[in-house]
């Protein structure tokens, strides 16, 4: 086809016009789609005692759609002749309820509301209808089955349960209302806008025993003890009309009088103040358990100074292998760090005569111990401090084994004797090839332990974590690179050589001072379940008559598990009680008495080396720099690092009303618990209600 001919032009023009027509041919309207809300909750109750029906409902719908909306209700009841009495749909006038009702937003696009109406006959069914517009049939509907609460004297027959609570001094009582619908739950009822009025009066102190409380609780089927039948006939003073769920009585109740609660009377009113048919009922409020968090007793550490018995052991100079079995630099360092520089060798060993050495070493230990005892001027325990210099391979540990065994045997022989006794040993070996047995480690500190090669890098700091010491390595400021961290006081010979080779500092640590303390043993040291327990005579925990106490494990700070508790008269062959088991006794009626507090331990000593550490290096690899600082490497059982223990802070003491409910840390009244029977493994930390000027 040739372009430009009349026919082609006609087709082109037609095409353009058709395209324009198609462009504007978008005439389809966007449809409306249904977007109905829901009546997402509905609950209905009828109480025969009150002859009032309650309905609770919530609507999930946008507030913009509620402008012209309305609610209608249809309900049926059992007629006098047993038939069904129908009430057709009619608008709900919320101003005409038995009680005051509000429509409240209750989260999201939800509106919560309630209504109450009188019905002398049981209400069987309620149908709710929400109209989007009063003049429109567009609606939402929901049918509600009615929970019928028969007349009676148990709590289920009442829609409101009244009970009393006290302020912290136990001298003022607040009356509280529990909304007893079940659905919705008590704490949610106010969100449905139900506001009720009550009249409470005739407050009088009244004491009840636990048996009476248990009987009343069983009869009323509520821990709130409502209605409180045991208050019948009790009359007193005060008169209070209030709206809402709580109000304080104006009068004060004598704290000195020991009654554990107070009775009062209450009646439910309609919104005009007219009493409902449920009439006047007795209620009871229980005083708060009087509890305290003592700080006593405080236990001071039993540690005392030890008398150190120094020993130096190395290969005999006449042994053919002596030349390769000594590193004089490191040997000097070992003596230096333990404060026995230039001390002559106390005993030497020979290769191939290890059994002779073992025997000689044991004999020397006994001799030196006896010698120390004969020269003693104090009652300190004794501790062997041994420099063991050897360069054996990792396969040969016979000498080390002999040293460790001999020390342990001698220490173990005095394990159960009273102080002064041989309490342990500290050995500074040259290598990391030998590790004492677990039993031996209970009384022997053997250094060094495995040092990883990377600890020599300035970039890694946790020397102590890899050493026989327990002190966490000091935080070193290595912001300026090329600095060398100090090695620590107790390196192995190989670590020592590497350090000296790399950094040329033979001093490593300066001005060392080894201090070791031990736990004296005596009549107060008992062996319980393979642990030694030291009891303290002068610090006792006392529970007086009528009182109770409980341990508070939630206040744990890693010490609690070490405590043991025993009565003052408990036989020594009966083990003490651990803290997690003592509550059974302390919360019982047998709790009153004096208790001895003990600390269980595995390792009897604690101490460490004070020394000066030097951080050396070059700033920006050029300017030499050295900074010294005092350092301390701890040895032994970290448990003993504490100078004193406030045992009392782990306890809570109850002096009165221990069988009453309590307030928890959130201020919630734990009506179904008592302080004594509270099963949680913690101590209540109550937040009490306070009377305010408004009376609520």
């Amino acid at each position, binding site marked *: 086809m040739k372009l430009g001919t*009349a026919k082609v*032009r*006609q087709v082109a*023009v*037609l095409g*353009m*016009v058709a*395209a*324009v*027509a198609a*462009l*504007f041919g*978008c*005439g*389809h*309207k*966007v*449809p*409306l*789609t*249904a*977007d*109905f*809300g829901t009546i997402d909750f509905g609950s209905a109750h009828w109480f025969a005692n009150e002859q009032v029906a309650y309905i609770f409902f919530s609507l999930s*719908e*946008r507030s*913009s*759609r509620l*402008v*012209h909306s309305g609610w209608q209700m249809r309900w049926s009841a059992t007629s006098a002749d047993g038939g069904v009495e129908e009430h057709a749909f009619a608008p709900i006038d919320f101003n005409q309820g038995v009680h005051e009702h509000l429509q409240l937003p209750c989260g999201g696009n939800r509106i919560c509301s309630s209504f109450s109406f009188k019905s002398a006959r049981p209400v069987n069914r309620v149908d709710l209808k929400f109209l*989007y*517009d009063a003049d*429109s049939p*567009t609606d939402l509907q929901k049918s509600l089955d009615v929970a019928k609460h028969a007349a009676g004297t148990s709590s289920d027959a009442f829609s409101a349960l009244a009970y009393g609570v006290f302020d912290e001094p136990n001298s003022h009582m607040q009356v509280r209302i529990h909304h007893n619908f079940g659905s919705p739950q008590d704490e949610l009822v106010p969100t449905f806008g139900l506001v009720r009025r009550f009249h409470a009066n005739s407050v009088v102190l009244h004491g009840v025993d636990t048996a009476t409380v248990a009987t009343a609780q069983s009869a009323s089927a509520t821990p709130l003890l409502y209605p409180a039948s045991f208050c019948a006939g009790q009359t007193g003073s005060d008169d209070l009309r209030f709206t809402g769920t709580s109000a304080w009585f104006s009068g004060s109740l004598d704290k000195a009088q020991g009654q554990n609660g107070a009775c009062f009377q209450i009646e439910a009113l309609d919104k005009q103040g007219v009493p409902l048919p449920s009439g006047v009922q007795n209620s009871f409020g229980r005083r708060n358990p009087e509890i305290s968090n003592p700080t006593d007793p405080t236990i001071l550490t039993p540690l005392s100074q030890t008398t150190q018995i120094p020993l130096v052991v190395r290969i005999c100079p006449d042994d053919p292998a002596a030349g390769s079995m000594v590193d004089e630099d490191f040997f000097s360092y070992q003596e230096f760090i333990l404060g026995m520089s230039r001390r002559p060798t106390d005993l030497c060993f020979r290769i191939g005569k290890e059994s002779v050495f073992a025997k000689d070493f044991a004999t020397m230990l006994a001799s030196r111990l006896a010698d120390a005892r004969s020269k003693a001027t104090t009652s300190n325990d004794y501790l062997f401090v041994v420099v063991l210099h050897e360069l054996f391979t990792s396969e040969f540990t016979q000498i080390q084994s002999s040293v460790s065994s001999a020390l342990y045997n001698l220490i173990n022989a005095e394990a159960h004797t009273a102080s002064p006794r041989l309490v342990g040993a500290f050995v500074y070996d040259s290598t990391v090839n030998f590790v004492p047995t677990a039993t031996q480690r209970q009384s022997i500190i053997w250094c060094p332990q495995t040092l990883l090669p990377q600890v020599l890098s300035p970039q890694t700091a946790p020397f102590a974590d890899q050493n026989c010491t327990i002190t966490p390595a000091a935080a070193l400021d290595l912001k300026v690179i090329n600095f060398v961290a100090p090695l620590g006081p107790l390196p192995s010979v190989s670590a020592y050589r590497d350090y000296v080779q790399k950094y040329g500092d033979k001093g490593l640590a300066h001005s060392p001072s080894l201090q070791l303390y031990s736990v004296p043993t005596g009549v107060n040291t008992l062996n319980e379940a393979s642990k030694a327990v030291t009891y303290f005579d002068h610090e006792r925990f006392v529970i007086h008559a009528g009182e109770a106490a409980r341990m508070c494990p939630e206040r744990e700070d890693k010490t609690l598990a070490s405590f043991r508790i025993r009565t003052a008269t408990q036989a020594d062959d009966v083990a003490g009680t651990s803290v997690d088991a003592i509550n059974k006794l302390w919360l019982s009626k047998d709790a009153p008495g004096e208790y001895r507090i003990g600390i269980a331990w595995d390792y009897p000593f604690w101490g460490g080396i004070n020394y000066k550490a030097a951080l050396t290096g070059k700033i920006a690899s050029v300017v030499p720099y050295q900074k010294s600082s005092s350092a301390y490497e701890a040895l032994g059982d970290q448990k003993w690092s504490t100078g004193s223990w406030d045992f009392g802070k782990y306890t809570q003491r109850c002096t009165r009303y221990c069988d009453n409910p309590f307030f928890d840390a959130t201020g919630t009244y734990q009506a179904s618990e008592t302080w004594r029977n509270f099963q949680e493994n913690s101590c209540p930390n109550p937040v009490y209600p306070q009377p305010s000027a408004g009376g609520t």
Partner: protein
Amino acid sequence: MAVYGRIIAIIVWLAATSASTGHAQEGMSVAGIVKEVTSRAESPHAYDWRRASAEVQLGYGYTAEANNFDTDTVELGVGIPVSGGSLLRFGLRRAMVHGTPSSNAIGRTPFKQGAQSTRYELFGGYGFGLLEGRSMTRFSPLLPDFEQILLAWGGAHYNHLNRTWIPMRSDPPAPLAGQDPAYAKLNIEIGLRWQVYMPQSFGLSFEAMQVRPVGGSGQLRYWAYYSGGVLWSFGAH
């Protein structure tokens, strides 16, 4: 249907006129020559939009969704003439969606209607020149002669929901009363664009487009967009 009938009548008439003009050309009458010169000029005498480096346009528009909501737009665009009498154009458009008494009334019922939300539209497209030429008005010389071009337009825009005027934020607006929010990131635009250039680099633009979302956008399947604006050209001779 009446509208389509009229369109068909116009098409038939145009076709007939086109055929008779062909015969007149064959006669080489003076009137025919003058018409040919006017409509087939190789280049305008006073102004050539093709030689502009770029043009900036500020416009106002209306997005005609077939629902009960109103959408006003303002836009800032840049156009670049390309060879062959075509135009590349891109820019940013702010679309502001309002409720109306009708949509508010829907908002009080348990129904809702699909509608887009307040947003930014980042647009771009290509215009192919269908018709162009130089025209003079009846008010000449009071009004200058002008250059005009009708473009077939195709493009797309990217939606960025944002209730605030700060484009970088991602702050989707809350649904309006009665609104069933419709949203598609990418939308295709096709339509016509008419641009009028004055010799002083000042001009006007008008466009009508049909917009379709790529992917679902609820009950909103397509809508129309109309806009008008003023433009300034740069680098024209």
